[in-house]
């Protein structure tokens, strides 16, 4: 096992732990936006696809890479847009409503 592989395992372990801790704190209220958000963020495989599509390793690799770029971009663009659309709908009680309750 190379030392890079060991470091990568450390990164995986720690990131998994951070993910677990952070995500257990997210209330069920926001679980759907969470799924949309992780979907958008997982579009990070775009960075791998970009390298594959742009390295001129022969036609097949380029075509595979281009499709991958398309899929990943669709996830990034669509994912962030829909998450934002959803989160914009979560509004606290309107101010007037609060005032009328107090008076």
């Amino acid at each position, binding site marked *: 096992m190379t030392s890079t592989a060991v470091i*990568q395992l450390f990164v995986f372990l720690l990131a998994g732990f951070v993910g677990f801790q952070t995500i257990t704190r997210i*209330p069920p209220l*926001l679980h759907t936006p969470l799924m949309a958000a992780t979907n958008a963020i997982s579009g990070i495989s775009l960075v791998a696809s970009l390298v594959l599509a742009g390295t001129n390793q022969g036609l097949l690799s380029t075509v595979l890479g281009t499709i991958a770029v398309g899929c990943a971009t*669709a996830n990034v663009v669509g994912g962030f847009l829909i998450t934002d659309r959803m989160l914009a709908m979560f509004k606290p009680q309107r101010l007037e409503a609060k005032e009328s309750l107090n008076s």
Partner: protein
Amino acid sequence: MITTGIQLAYLSAAALFVMALRSLGQPTTARRGMQMAAFGMLVAVCATLVDQRILSYEWLTVGLIAGGLIGYPLGMWVPMTAMPQRIAFSHAFGALAATLVGVGEYLHGFDEETLTHGKTIALGFEVFLGALTVTGSLMAFGKLQELLPGAPITFRGQNLFNLSLFAVGLACLVWLIVSPYSVPLFVAILAIGLVIGILMVMPIGGADMPVVVSLLNSYAGLAAVATGFALDNNILIVVGALDGASGFILSMAMSKAMNRSFTNVLFGAFGTEAGMSEASQGAVGEMVAIEPEDAALRLAFARRVIIVPGYGLAVAQAQHQVRELADLLEKRDVDVRFAIHPVAGRMPGHMNVLLAEAGISYDKLFDMEDINERFSDADVALVIGANDVVNPAARTNRSSPIYGMPILNVQDAKSIIVLKRGRGKGFSGVENDLFVSPKTNMLFGDAKQSLAQLANEVKQA
């Protein structure tokens, strides 16, 4: 120099992603956090574009533009009720990207003869998990969109067959590590992954789809982790781990809320049928119907009302009617709250999104744990199109198939009005004692019309 710059850009993107997930802990900070994550993504992508390994930009521009054109409608035009299918569909996209990258990298390594054992195991895992997620998600999408029959499709020896296929896949993987250059093995792993994805989702019924969709989320994350290992790319590992953890936590939460163990959901298409037959006894008594006028009066003169929306509300598209009713009641100084069961919608948190879309503010939406003890103070509990999640048998009747499932304590309310389409049973086929309780009145009819009638009557009261 450029390489260091790119790595630093990735590092900051990873930090922004983690902070974004943290900001999702509260609705007030969530939106800003996600915008920062989007910025992080932009940074990571721009940094990758200056990578010296990229020699030509034509194809990649084509891909980016095509992806943007597909992504925009997926983001802006999909209605909120279609969220579960939308998410399943984009899992397929994400996994497809990971799979194709895996295949491309394998080809590359094959040509240059740079396939090490370590890289091969990562690529094998990536392609296996990726392929399985692609077809699995498409199946889930088909079932949720009702392009495919929602009922479980089963055949004899199915679990044995699936497990042996899975074992064959793993054997191919091990063999591939030993001899990295045998292309047929790689192709076999890809093919087996694709087939397992289909077989895995086929026997799972439409109602269990939330668990499956979350689980596929987790697999897509693990595929991304494998990509990271194969390409020595830390940001893929970090993001994949976050994604995997999120999917895992959500699928656990959903199975718990449905009173099913993980294994039971995955292998349990047979178990549910056995549960149904023994459930036919129970509930004795008559359901007592109520007229909309009387129900409206009771609501209008209550002090505290808790509304329990179920999936029937979403089916009837009655979110806006329920908000109208809630607004009218609040004008009369009635304290209105919504009690949301974890599986009220078709995916984790779905009902919250549907109600928020209708303009109900999130501080009126309460999770099960937060509202359960308040039912005893409520004058009226208004149950709209929910059945199993309010069935007291889950607490009291040991022989009931839903025994042990966490439920909303609607039976503690001083009086209960249930809006229901007809006298039939819920999807689990279990009789509901709540509906025949002396405290309960039933208002039969389409939820949308009933709510509109109620609102009308409340206005006149």
